[in-house]
């Protein structure tokens, strides 16, 4: 997944340093987002209070299901990206593939936000087990990486590998988040609402 042959990337005449700056500034902002979440999660005393949503047994199930749906949308993200980049043999990118990619991404992100807020407010950044520490780190990193992805998306003239690499990072972090939370939750307490 290096050079996207089907996506013509216009290269406007610009200063040589601008390419690096285009990645550096969003990366810096993304790092600040991740750091802010981590520091808030660590400093704010977790309330432990969990507001229940009707129809679910506990907030753990609400979060696990939201995270699972977000992860399914993330799988759609990878699939649609592969089609857009012409990496799926014998499948030509349909006209709606861009829309599918954008909307599945937006939905995945918007579903992840309430889960993250509950984590930050009620549970906090914790390190009492390896799973919990990894989940805390991945959670902060995910929203940082997503910020980077959104900020570099509209930029023109980036090297072709940048978007796939950042996109893959966002996807990997979300799947890691799911495995360290919803997967653990469902396998510990059972799959139901």
């Amino acid at each position: 997944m290096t050079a996207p042959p089907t996506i013509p990337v216009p290269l406007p005449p610009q200063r040589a340093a601008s390419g690096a700056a285009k990645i550096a500034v969003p990366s810096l902002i993304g790092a600040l987002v991740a750091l802010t979440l981590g520091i808030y999660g660590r400093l704010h005393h977790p309330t432990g209070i969990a507001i229940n949503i009707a129809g679910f047994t506990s907030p753990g199930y609400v979060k696990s299901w939201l995270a699972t749906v977000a992860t399914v949308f993330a799988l759609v993200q990878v699939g649609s990206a592969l089609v857009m980049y012409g990496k799926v043999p014998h499948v030509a990118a349909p006209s709606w593939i861009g829309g599918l990619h954008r909307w599945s991404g937006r939905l995945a992100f918007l579903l992840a936000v309430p889960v993250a807020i509950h984590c930050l407010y009620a549970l906090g950044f914790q390190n009492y087990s390896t799973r919990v520490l990894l989940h805390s780190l991945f959670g902060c990193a995910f929203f940082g990486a997503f910020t980077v992805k959104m900020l570099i998306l509209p930029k023109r003239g980036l090297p072709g590998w940048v978007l796939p690499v950042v996109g893959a990072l966002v996807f990997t972090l979300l799947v890691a988040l799911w495995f360290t939370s919803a997967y653990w939750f469902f396998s510990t307490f059972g799959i139901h609402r």
Partner: protein
Amino acid sequence: MRRNTPLITLLTGGALGVVLLIASMLAPRSKAPTGFSAAATPTPASAATVQSSSPAASPAPAATATANAQFRADYAGRVKGGVHASVAISIHGTQAIAYACNGSSVEAWLKGTAAGGRLALTGKNGAVLTGNYDSRRAFGNVSADGITYAFSVYTVKKPSGLYRATADVRGATIKAGWIVLPDGTQVGSLESNPDAAAPSATAAPPLDVTAGTAQDANTVLHVISISGTTGSGF
């Protein structure tokens, strides 16, 4: 015309996060563990007991508060008299939270002050804890559900200490507390309706200290540590 749609996505998510965070900050006021808020307004009888037994403790003089502002400790242990009941006390600066419990029907959450080496805490239904403390141990008396226990307990380190869980299940509140003793023994009780005039407590389900969870029937309780050392739960 090219609109920066990824930025709109990002800002929408950020705005959603801020709204949810504010909603969370506002919501717990009505859903807060009621035993705690009730402890702030003790019954006249228990308030009188506290004042007569330790007049210096309430209100804490400003000078004492400053001197004790950094004092942090967690104590836990069995009460005297060879019974199963245990008590855990956490001190964070001049604030103190305590939990006394016999592992079934007798239990009380207490909140109050720790100043000048003296403890003065009150809870619902006339629960009172008075005593003395230093950096090594806390000793005194605690009354819960009409039974008075004498205690002399020593400081503990995680995972020993005090844990609490609250959950709202279909409109009813569950509130549970656990004291984890230095030998790993858990003494815990669970109130399924702490708002009732005479709440009935039962033995709490086993607490998974590592996972921070306990399972009560179909409900998963997420536990938070009450620790004066770390400030968690204060």
